[in-house]
């Protein structure tokens, strides 16, 4: 790694950790209606509650009601996104005349955006109308993230309240996280992005005449638009001249801002944030990269603030960072070293003042190596899943890092809300194991951790790996699964493992060679995303309900402190152990074998 690689990694981590505290405290206060910002927008907030029939004075819900409200809202979201895609051809704001989306693709995309995964089976700029992008996907970008934040605050209330059934009101949490957290940050970010050259317009896509018209091989199609095959079964082509370029634009900036902040990741364009109009400059890249981890990291500080012990929040944030930084190093080092096969061909991959060098396949010049690897690590550590380089073309170890970061359960920062409540499940397991070791009743923040909490936490930790491993196993034997693998051999297996790791942890990034827009993958990956989101959110709400009912046990000499370096390393150990044991055999079949093969060539 070059000096500049280290500097860029350092700047990124420093800015992220510096902003975590002020934003964290702001979010903690605003969610409970204690901030000055609450007063400014009080009329708007009250109006929404009035229309919705929510009376803030007596709105408290027990965990079951909270879960029902959460699920009702999400189910409605899935239904609406599905319907809009199926009807986009007759809905307004479709200047490019996009056709209705297929049933399987709409099913997949609806679940994908409602669950905050934002896996994309479709190519954005060539499939969806402006209306679908804004009203269906743009809205889910906000509310799926807001749902995650809402559930997290319900869980936090479970820890701080005592002897009550109530854990807050879902509708108020939803509205507050949208109005006070996601919306203002998105407006700031979107404005910065437009200033850098991200489009924001409702005009149809402009055409430009090329400076040098070029010839290309155009596939020959018959009357039905199907490709004509020659004697060898290859598609026939004819020479054609290319003289103009249609530059796809649209209301891009507003969607990109929230897709990063809300850990959504579904891009406006097919190439996602590698597309120069989604991410035109190093500055836009930094803004986007920062906003994808910012809220998730800051929520740790919100947690500390609310439980009235900021050390508890920092302990979790430090544990996450301890896992993140070494993996970021491995990824950057591996990509900067480059591809040994290209080195043999006499291609210059050295990092100099004139070029970033390294493995540049699938990477953009303005980002080079390090801005691509920080992004790849951050987007998979957080359950964002947007990409500014093509992970499928990474070196084997460079690609292993994002894959494994997802497989750790999206708890290293993780999705907004969902990352921290996922980490809290690991904390419950850690204090339980720790309690067994010292022979004391396990407790966390004064709440006794008993078998009910342990059962629910175990469910949360087991579901994503089960989905990922089982799904991969089915796909590599089913004909519909095998037929859509792009890269041959070991790397093809990695493509499938990556897809299931991504959807089963609500990430959404891909080894995009895999042809995922077909009935088989749209269906099975849609199912994985559904269970990965809701079968985790409901158990953690159950934990919150159970904890809220308990008394708070005063700290005694037998209490295991949960803010010390000892506990931080213990927690890191538990997360790594679960992730490593579950996925090592699968990773050994994919990126690890590929690495050894490549090294031996």
């Amino acid at each position, binding site marked *: 790694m070059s000096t500049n690689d280290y500097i860029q990694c350092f700047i990124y981590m420093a800015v992220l950790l510096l902003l975590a505290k002020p934003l964290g405290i702001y979010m903690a206060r605003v969610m409970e209606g204690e901030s000055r910002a609450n007063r400014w927008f009080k009329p708007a907030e009250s109006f929404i509650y009035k229309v919705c029939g929510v009376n803030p004075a007596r709105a408290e819900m027990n965990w079951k009601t909270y879960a029902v409200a959460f699920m009702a809202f999400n189910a409605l979201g899935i239904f609406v996104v599905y319907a809009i895609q199926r009807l986009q051809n007759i809905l307004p704001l479709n200047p490019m005349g996009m056709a209705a989306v297929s049933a399987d693709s709409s099913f997949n995309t609806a679940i994908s955006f409602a669950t905050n995964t934002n896996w994309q089976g479709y190519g954005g700029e060539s499939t969806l109308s402006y209306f679908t992008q804004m009203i269906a996907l743009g809205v889910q970008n906000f509310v799926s993230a807001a749902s995650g934040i809402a559930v997290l605050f319900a869980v936090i209330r479970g820890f701080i309240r005592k002897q009550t059934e109530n854990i807050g009101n879902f509708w108020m949490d939803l509205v507050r996280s949208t109005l006070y957290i996601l919306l203002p940050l998105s407006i700031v970010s979107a404005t910065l992005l437009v200033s850098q050259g991200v489009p924001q317009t409702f005009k149809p896509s402009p055409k430009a005449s090329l400076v040098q018209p070029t010839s290309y091989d155009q596939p020959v199609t018959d009357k039905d638009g199907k490709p004509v095959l020659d004697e060898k079964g290859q598609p026939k082509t004819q020479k054609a001249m290319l003289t103009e370029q249609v530059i796809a634009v649209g209301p891009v900036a507003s969607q990109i801002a929230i897709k990063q902040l809300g850990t959504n990741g579904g891009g406006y364009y097919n190439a996602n944030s590698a597309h120069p109009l989604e991410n035109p400059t190093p500055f836009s890249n930094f803004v986007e990269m920062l906003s994808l981890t910012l809220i998730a990291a800051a929520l740790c500080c919100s947690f500390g603030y609310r439980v009235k012990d900021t050390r508890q929040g920092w302990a979790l944030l430090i544990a996450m960072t301890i896992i993140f930084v070494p993996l970021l190093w491995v990824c950057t080092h591996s990509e900067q070293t480059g591809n040994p096969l290209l080195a043999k061909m006499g291609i210059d991959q050295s990092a100099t003042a004139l070029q970033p060098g390294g*493995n540049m396949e699938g990477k953009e010049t303005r980002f080079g190596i390090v801005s*691509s690897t920080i992004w790849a690590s951050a987007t998979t550590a957080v359950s964002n899943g947007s990409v500014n380089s093509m992970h499928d073309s990474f070196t*084997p170890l460079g690609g292993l890092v994002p894959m494994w970061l997802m497989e750790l359960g999206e708890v290293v920062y993780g999705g907004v809300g969902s990352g921290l409540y996922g980490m809290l499940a690991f904390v419950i397991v850690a204090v339980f194991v720790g309690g067994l070791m010292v022979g004391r009743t396990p407790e966390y923040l004064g709440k006794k951790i008993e078998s009910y909490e342990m059962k629910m936490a175990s469910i949360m930790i087991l579901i994503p790996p089960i989905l990922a491993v089982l799904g991969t196993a089915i796909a590599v034997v089913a004909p519909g699964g095998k037929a859509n693998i792009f890269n041959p051999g070991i790397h093809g297996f990695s493509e499938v493992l990556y897809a299931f790791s991504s959807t089963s942890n609500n990430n959404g990034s891909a080894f995009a060679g895999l042809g995922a827009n077909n009935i088989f993958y749209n269906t099975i990956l849609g199912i994985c995303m559904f269970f990965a989101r809701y079968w985790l959110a409901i158990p953690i709400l159950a934990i919150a309900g159970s904890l809220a009912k308990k008394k708070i046990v005063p700290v005694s000499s037998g209490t295991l402190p949960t803010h010390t370096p000892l506990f931080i390393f213990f927690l890191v150990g538990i997360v790594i152990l679960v992730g490593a044991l579950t996925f090592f055999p699968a990773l050994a079949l994919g990126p690890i074998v590929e690495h050894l093969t490549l090294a031996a060539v």
Partner: protein
Amino acid sequence: MIREQIRPALFSFVLLTLITGVLYPLSVTGIAKVFFRNQSEGSLILKNGKAVGSEHIGQPFDAPQYLWGRPSATSPAFNASSSSGSNYGPMHADYLKAVGDRAKALKDADPSHQAHVPVDLVTASGSGLDPQISLAGAYYQVSRIARIRGISEDKIKKIIEKNTQGRFLGLLGEPAVNVLKVNLDLDEVKK
């Protein structure tokens, strides 16, 4: 329990859709129109009132008198309404062949110049629309362009440097040369 949640679910969905799906993008569009008009419409480069491209979107160049950009995996190359990377894994046979062919094409176009080819000139970009190449990639092509156009290498290097975007604050991202802008400037040069 479920029935009580139907009204808030429906109405909050409608109101939040209006706020985040309509008001939010419209207000961002308004800000964009007032302050960043050209950027918000795709940063088009106009020549005699006609768009010849976007500052941020690459174009295909394969004639020897032009600076060549990153290889593009879209079909056809640099298709700005269907972006895509190659998604080749590092050991894919077609990928290695493509890299070899691209390196050969560069060397064939300038037989006297046989240095190692910079990696960004032979690897496809992530979007297939990368408007830029590295400085190493640009300097590599100077001798060919100078020979064919009959202008001095210094003049070409000056054009390249003029169209180079440095790191943000000297720290973030990578220095990069805008291929389209260089080529537009090259066409303006009088011998």
